[in-house]
């Protein structure tokens, strides 16, 4: 790595900068130890664990029904998908077949959560780059989803709506009407987002050509979700290993070949449209039926290993359960998308400036409790 200054007599020296753990642009409590020369980053060394809450250890003492609520607190922006992953794993292991109604509602809820997560990401990304207005726009629309969630689920953020065997409650009578109202509103609001930010020349210059991830690197480092699809890798779990009602809906997997931060940005913007398409296909066709099936009060999984992956808002979320036949798992591992996505940060941000690092981190969309668990 060379210095930017062409004056060969000027001697420069590497030094360390601590970014975080309490940093407004670090999306939480990520601490990065940067080795920089002037403004140019030579090395990024993430120091994790500032929100490591030992969830995996706790799961070894909890029953399967208790575990579900802990997954809310992992990646709190895709809490519904995390719940679903545990529930699907338990259901598959027990051989429980959930009613169609549950599958449909789960899928709708998944996509609503994804929309809410992407809205928040969009608002915060704008803020990281320096545009405060996006924050207000995004949270205006996010509140509508929160209201829908609150009516049916009873919570705005940590939902805990799935249980092994179905859902905790049936949907609220207003649910379908309000979801349709929201979609109608957001169909108009999304172009507004694009007008405000996507085409902005300053915004583009901050992102284009910054933080390039090649196809090979993305696979090798285990990058998944929108971040990998920005490099043109087909990795959507909803398409490859369909679960719930995803095999019944038609939607496109958004793929952009470029690989830089702007492409990752555009993937998420287009994914929001796809999410709306999915919801529209399902919302009027929710079948009648029960919202849960009866399960034993104390679930004991048969001895063995069970893996379940779902597509969370950040990428591939996995739950790996090793059971020894008792009421709580012998070992439970969460495969969090952020953890793998973070591992590539050092590689892609070398040679960029510190301000670019903020843009790269935004475009990878980290949620730190998801990384630290």
């Amino acid at each position, binding site marked *: 790595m060379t210095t930017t200054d062409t004056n060969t007599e000027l001697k420069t020296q590497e030094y360390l900068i601590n970014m975080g753990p309490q940093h407004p642009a670090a999306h939480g409590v990520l601490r990065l130890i940067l080795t920089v020369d002037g403004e140019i980053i030579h090395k990024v060394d993430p120091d994790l*664990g500032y929100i490591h809450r030992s969830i995996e250890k706790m799961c070894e003492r909890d029953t399967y029904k208790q575990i579900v609520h802990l997954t809310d607190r992992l990646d709190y922006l895709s809490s519904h998908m995390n719940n679903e992953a545990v529930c699907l794993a338990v259901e598959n292991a027990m051989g429980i077949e959930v009613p169609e109604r549950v599958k449909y509602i789960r899928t709708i809820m998944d996509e609503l959560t994804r929309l809410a997560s992407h809205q928040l990401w969009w608002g915060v990304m704008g803020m990281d780059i320096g545009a405060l207005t996006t924050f207000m726009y995004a949270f205006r629309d996010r509140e509508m989803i929160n209201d829908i969630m609150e009516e049916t689920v009873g919570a705005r953020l940590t939902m805990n709506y799935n249980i092994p065997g179905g859902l905790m409650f049936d949907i609220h009578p207003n649910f379908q009407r309000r979801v349709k109202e929201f979609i109608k509103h957001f169909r108009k609001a999304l172009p507004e987002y694009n007008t405000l930010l996507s085409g902005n020349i300053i915004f583009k210059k901050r992102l284009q050509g910054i933080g390039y991830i090649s196809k090979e690197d993305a*696979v090798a480092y*285990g990058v998944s979700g929108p971040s990998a699809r920005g490099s043109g890798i087909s990795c959507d779990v909803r398409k490859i290993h369909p679960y719930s009602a995803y095999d019944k809906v038609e939607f496109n997997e958004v793929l952009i070949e470029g690989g830089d931060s702007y492409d990752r940005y555009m993937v998420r913007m287009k994914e929001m449209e796809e999410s709306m398409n999915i919801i529209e296909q399902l919302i009027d066709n929710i079948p009648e039926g029960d919202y849960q099936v009866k399960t034993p009060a104390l679930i004991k999984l048969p001895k063995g290993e069970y893996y379940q992956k779902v597509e969370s808002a950040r990428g591939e979320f996995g739950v790996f359960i*090793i059971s020894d036949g008792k009421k709580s798992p012998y*070992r439970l*591992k969460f495969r969090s998308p952020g*953890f793998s996505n973070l591992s590539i940060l050092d590689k892609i941000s070398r040679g960029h400036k510190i301000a670019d690092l903020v843009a790269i981190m935004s475009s990878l969309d980290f949620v730190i409790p998801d990384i630290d668990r």
Partner: protein
Amino acid sequence: MTRTELQSFLSSKMEGLEFGEETTQYLTVTAPKEKLRELMFLLKDTEELAFDYMFSLTAVDWFPKSLGVIYHLESTKFRHILVVHVNTGNREDDVTIDTVSDIYPTAHFHEREAYDLMGIIFDGHSDLRRLFLTDDWVGHPLRKDYVDEANMIVK
């Protein structure tokens, strides 16, 4: 490749592999730890297999015998999945396993996590430090016999 094809292909290429029961979710193979790197190279570089995507690495404490690592591999080309089990020797004094972080770069962080929380030492890892806990932390909390009276309130 289907599951049976995978199994016969692998057993023809390498000796000493033990395959799990047929009822498991994915094809499971247990490799002796001396052969781990050889197996990983085979899985990644063979054209018919092309296991290029390691989506999970889990460290397990098989109390009281040994520690173990479970690798979940997927091929982005063929979409088949394979689970590789490797066990260390005695969990008290022989907890070394060869690193795969040069074959799968994603394992770099995962192995640091496994070292931090489970105390598995990955031989050949370029930067094996604690990842989540502070450097002065005593013990490895995900082990089954971990006791921490100061910090843990056990229910």
